[in-house]
């Protein structure tokens, strides 16, 4: 396959970036998207050019490192698939593919396609946990959890923190990410004592970090590689509404 790539190149956080064009003649269908970039990078190195920087690690769709907007869609055209698991057979010979980094003020570009997503860690720090110290846990069977709640909590817990939701959101909002955590913990009995304070604390942090506000467009859920449902956001809203009306607070 012959592929033309237009890739966002930016030397560092302060530099001005631009799209650069690369032509590849020997792309194979069975290559993953990242392997195609590996091949390009080896060529660039041998030609004394700076290889394209991109985040990646597990390459099996679970670590959440890889993050590219491919032809305007975070993680590219295949549903429920991270960039690392996208294969070149989904493109045609002669295609031109645009590759850009996540775009959000809260995810500043570090270099090329690499962005700083530590804002997500900060949102978790604001309350994305159950406050239980090691050793203080009761026996695991002390609290049964009905299977439906456990399964729904699991569905929300599959979030890999990649940030595609933010990248796709026309508002640059991280609501799907935040709500996935709020839903995961809010559905389990272990998460109840902190349910409302968790929701408002995490939301407040998200607002403070310059993520946009949610307007329920739904782009996030469309591109989420783990299929986190949009209704998670409703659950977050529900908990925030409760906390707002009752004035729940953690201090």
């Amino acid at each position, binding site marked *: 396959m012959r592929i033309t790539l237009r890739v*966002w190149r930016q030397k560092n956080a302060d530099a001005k970036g631009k799209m650069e064009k690369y032509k590849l003649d020997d792309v194979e269908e069975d290559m993953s998207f990242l392997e195609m970039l590996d091949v390009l990078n080896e060529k660039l190195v041998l030609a004394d050019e700076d290889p394209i920087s991109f985040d990646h690690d597990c390459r099996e769709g679970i670590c959440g490192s890889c993050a590219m907007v491919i032809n305007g869609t975070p993680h590219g055209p295949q549903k429920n698939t991270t960039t690392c698991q996208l294969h070149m057979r989904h493109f045609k010979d002669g295609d031109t593919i*645009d590759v850009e980094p996540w775009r959000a003020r809260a995810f500043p570009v570090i270099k090329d396609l690499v962005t700083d997503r530590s804002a997500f860690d900060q949102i978790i720090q604001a309350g994305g946990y159950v406050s239980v110290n090691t050793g203080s846990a009761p026996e695991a069977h002390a609290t049964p959890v009905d299977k439906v709640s456990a399964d729904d909590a699991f569905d929300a817990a599959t979030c890999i923190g990649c940030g595609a939701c933010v990248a796709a959101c026309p508002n640059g*909002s991280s609501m799907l990410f935040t709500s996935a955590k709020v839903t995961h913990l809010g559905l389990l009995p272990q998460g109840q004592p902190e349910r409302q*304070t968790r929701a*408002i604390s995490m939301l407040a942090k998200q607002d403070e970090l310059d993520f*946009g506000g949610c307007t329920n*467009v739904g782009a996030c859920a469309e591109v989420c590689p783990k299929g986190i449902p949009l209704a998670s956001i*409703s659950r977050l809203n529900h908990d925030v509404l409760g906390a*707002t009306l009752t004035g729940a607070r953690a*201090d």
Partner: protein
Amino acid sequence: MVLTQQRNIVTRTWGSSVGKKFVMAVTGVIFLLYVIAHMIGNLKIFFGRETFDAYSEHLRTLGADIFGYSGVLWIIRVVLIAAVVLHMVAAFSLWYKAKRARPVGYQHKGHQGSYAARTMRWGGVIIALFVIWHILDLTTGTVNPDPAGGAYGKLVASFDRPVVAIFYIVAMVALSFHISHGLWSGIQTLGGNSAVKQHALKSFSIGVGVVVAVGFAIIPVSVMIGLVR
């Protein structure tokens, strides 16, 4: 968990992005109820000039023994004006926040989310402009060819101008989109959505949007084709 939670319910609400959406959802519900009542009232046009003008007059005498002539109407107007201000200020605030959240845009634009969802803001602006025209035209009569013609007369005179009728219909399509997404979005914002209900709620909202648009647009169409004279 470190938390600097504002104690006052107003600042607590207005202080968060979701709080602003609560405001938009609640004010949106107020509009929607008003719009539905307005539409039902409008449909009285098909019962003739007298019924329609009497209905218009009735709105002004409603509760007059307590609130005075047009009192209730003014209360409704004040509530609506307050709602529109809150709705728009919240919307602009979120719009600004969204602009701020993505200082550098994409070279290759994506198209995720439904058309209705992506056009809420401009759709809202069009509707606001329409409402201004609409008040000048049919309430104050300022831009109406027959300002003294009574409710029925003003309406027929206005829609006798095809451009105005078409503008009205276009605005109703925009309103329909706005409701189709807005109603569902409001339910989602108020915490009423779930993965199981989502499809039904979306269909319901689209249904309401279509019914409202048809209910309003049927009148200019009727004037244009001569059904209402």
